[in-house]
């Protein structure tokens, strides 16, 4: 479905634009993230950034990402996140606003993206102007040699802020590197979990939430709960491996469910 769209997009591009896109793809390493790439793409529109067509820009970006995929160029995750977001933005911009929908409108999102691009461009220009200024040690100079007329000798000690922060970091890191002593009170071992599970799974015919296997008293305190969950999960995997248990999770972060795999089933 979106493929059809994509073909349309590609078809409407001029040869020149396609060549430009090709060059961009080859050069993908040279970009500092999606915003940088978007800014480069926006230049092909040759208009003031305030009047840029974000819809057009979204199309260009999505084409870029698809072409990169075609060419089997690995894109970093944030490029793909941006692609997903722009696809969403594109659909918002194309469809009439749904009064039921919550959240910002397509136009608001597009305006903010345009603002971000303009601001980034402005900062780049400012950086260039700054570096273009006369600089000390290159264009203008300080006194070559300070004068020492009378030496009243005294010693001062200096330290920079970096020294200070690094010093502190050093101590505190050292602290974190101290031999690690297990706090046994809050650790539930896998052996314990395995023992407990073995005695319980016989009773589990239907899918049951793994968390219900946590021992009493390990549910509330987050530290203890974390340890017990990890141990129970590891024990479950062990039992799956042994062919005693089935395990499933319907989607990311949803509950992990267990079922015994008895000979009878």
């Amino acid at each position, binding site marked *: 479905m979106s493929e059809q769209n994509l073909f349309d997009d590609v078809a409407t591009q001029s040869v020149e634009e396609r060549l430009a896109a090709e060059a961009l793809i080859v050069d993908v390493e040279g970009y500092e993230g999606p915003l940088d790439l978007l800014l480069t793409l926006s230049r092909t529109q040759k208009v003031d950034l305030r009047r840029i067509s974000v819809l057009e820009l979204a199309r260009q970006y999505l084409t870029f990402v698809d072409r990169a995929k075609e060419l089997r160029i690995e894109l970093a995750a944030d490029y793909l996140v941006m692609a997903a977001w722009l696809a969403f933005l594109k659909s918002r911009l194309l469809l009439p606003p749904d009064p039921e929908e919550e959240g910002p409108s397509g136009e608001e999102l597009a305006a903010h993206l345009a603002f971000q691009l303009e601001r*980034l461009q402005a900062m780049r220009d400012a950086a260039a102007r700054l570096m273009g*200024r006369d600089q000390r040690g290159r264009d203008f100079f300080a*006194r070559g040699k300070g004068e020492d007329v009378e030496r009243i000798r005294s010693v001062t000690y200096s330290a920079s802020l970096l020294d200070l922060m690094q010093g502190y970091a050093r101590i505190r890191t050292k602290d974190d590197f101290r031999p690690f002593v297990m706090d046994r009170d809050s650790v539930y071992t896998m052996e314990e979990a395995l023992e407990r599970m073995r005695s319980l799974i016989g009773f589990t015919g239907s899918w049951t939430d793994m968390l219900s296997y946590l021992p009493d008293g390990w549910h509330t305190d987050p530290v203890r709960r974390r340890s017990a969950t990890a141990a129970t999960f590891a024990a479950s995997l062990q039992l799956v491996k042994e062919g005693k248990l089935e395990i499933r999770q319907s989607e990311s972060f949803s509950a992990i469910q267990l079922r015994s795999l008895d000979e009878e089933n």
Partner: protein
Amino acid sequence: MDDHGLDQTAEQPEGGPLERDSLFEAPPMVEQERMVEAVLFASSEPVTLRDLAGRMPHGCNPGEAVEHLRKRYEGRGVRVVRVGDAWAVRTAPDLGFLMQKEIVETRKLSRAAIETLAIIAYHQPVTRAEIEEIRGVSVSRGTIDQLLEMEWIRLGRRRMTPGRPVTFVVTPSFLDHFGLESARDLPGLKELRAAGLLENRPPPGALPIGHGEDGEHEIGEQPELFEE
């Protein structure tokens, strides 16, 4: 022009010598100007008015003396320039070509470092998260470190927002390096402000831009050391 002789001492006519009605009268302005000239020439780093006042005899007005001196050197081979709240003598930029021998090769800054520096200068005080939001990528390790080491940026006040993140501001050496009197004199600052480009606009809803993938952001969320 002034016939009853006792016109206010405070208003020193340029270079006019003082009538000495006190044992500790400040030296005449020409003399003060000479002193300032000597001190500024001798020091390679900018000297504050306070430091000048501390070195000059009691009752001097270094601010006024500097102003005279500045005028005197207009159009000359060296100039008296202001750097923050301090003053320095620097060669005229159009004569840089004579100074091949003195040029110090500075470490070349990466594009990321230059942009980060510009963002700090124009948006200061600014947090790391804000820099990332503007650049759309996370600030790499070492970039801030490098700028701190060059003493072009320093820590500002913590932002009074959740997590109380640290902020960064530019330093007097930054001003000195780029020949700026103050951060207000950054090129194009007014126009950028007028165009609203220095505002920190929150994104409507959540935008994916500027959110470094990994842990970098914790900064914003993490309870801080000095949290009460």
